[in-house]
């Protein structure tokens, strides 16, 4: 019975879940968390790296819980959520970047990997380094638009810049990361 109710709640739309959350239903917030945790986590990781990632995810969802009653246009929840994610990433950027570079220097591979997996890891590392190579603003546009499939108009709303600026940043970000990858021997 409880499982059925839980499944029903999980199938609810964002707007219905938000409505329940606003009325203090923490179970609905749990579903909202499960629905968006991966996107938030991936975005934060691509923007800030792995250090303090769990704390940042928690911070995002705490801000969401506190801010939900003030969210007027509930159909724009995902844009609003990305906006909070962006704000948290921005707030933590400097201290985070220092920790990340230190961690990268100290990181030691903890297992032996197969050659194909090694190649994948190599490419992942290249993409990570390529993203790190970009300015924070360019990285944000590339992550949101190209990796998270957020439309340009929404990216503009999330970052609080005109659509033209998003287009321009996207153009420069792609050029820079393409150049970086080609220098590393990737044939695109």
């Amino acid at each position, binding site marked *: 019975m409880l499982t059925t109710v839980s499944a029903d709640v999980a199938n609810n739309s964002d707007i219905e879940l938000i409505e329940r959350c*606003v*009325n*203090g239903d*923490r179970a609905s*917030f*749990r579903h909202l*968390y*499960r629905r968006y*945790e991966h996107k938030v*986590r*991936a975005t*934060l*990781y*691509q923007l800030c790296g*792995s250090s303090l*990632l*769990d704390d940042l*995810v*928690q911070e995002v*969802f*705490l801000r969401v*819980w*506190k801010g939900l*009653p*003030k969210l007027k246009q509930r159909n724009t929840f995902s844009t609003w959520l990305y906006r909070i994610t962006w704000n948290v990433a921005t707030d933590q950027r400097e201290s985070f970047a220092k920790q990340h570079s230190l961690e990268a220097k100290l990181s030691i591979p903890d297992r032996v990997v197969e050659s194909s997996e090694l190649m*994948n890891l190599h*490419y*992942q*590392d*290249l*993409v*990570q380094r390529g*993203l790190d190579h970009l300015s924070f603003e360019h990285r944000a546009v*590339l992550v949101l638009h*190209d*990796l998270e499939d957020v439309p340009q108009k929404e990216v503009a709303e999330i970052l609080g810049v005109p659509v033209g600026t998003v287009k321009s940043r996207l153009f420069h970000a*792609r050029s820079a*990361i*393409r150049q970086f*990858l080609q220098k590393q021997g*990737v044939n*695109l």
Partner: protein
Amino acid sequence: MTEPIEDQKLVYFLKRNSPIPPDSIPDLEERIIIAIAQEPRINQTTVKRLWLVPAAIVTSVLITVSGYFLFKPTQIQPVAQGQEAELEAFLINNWDSTLHDSSGDKYKETSNEEDFFRASFQDN
């Protein structure tokens, strides 16, 4: 609008090899649920009621200010030195003309009484 083929290739490569975030700690979900339970909840009613606070303050200020001007006692302006004499002369003239006015019948009796009193004073 279709993206140029070079951009499509790049985006495909980035997506395919985008860094995978490490797994979260096992109890992160519980940690977040516990954390939000400890947060003081601002529900919609509270948010709506918050607007009443500045409105109430403005209303109180308006009532106080308008009440002050409405119920403020009017101050009597002191009479200037020259005006005082002028006012005195006016009062005397006005009084005299009232006493000696013979045109109105209702004042006739008063006037006669005045004459009677004057005459009795002179006699004494």
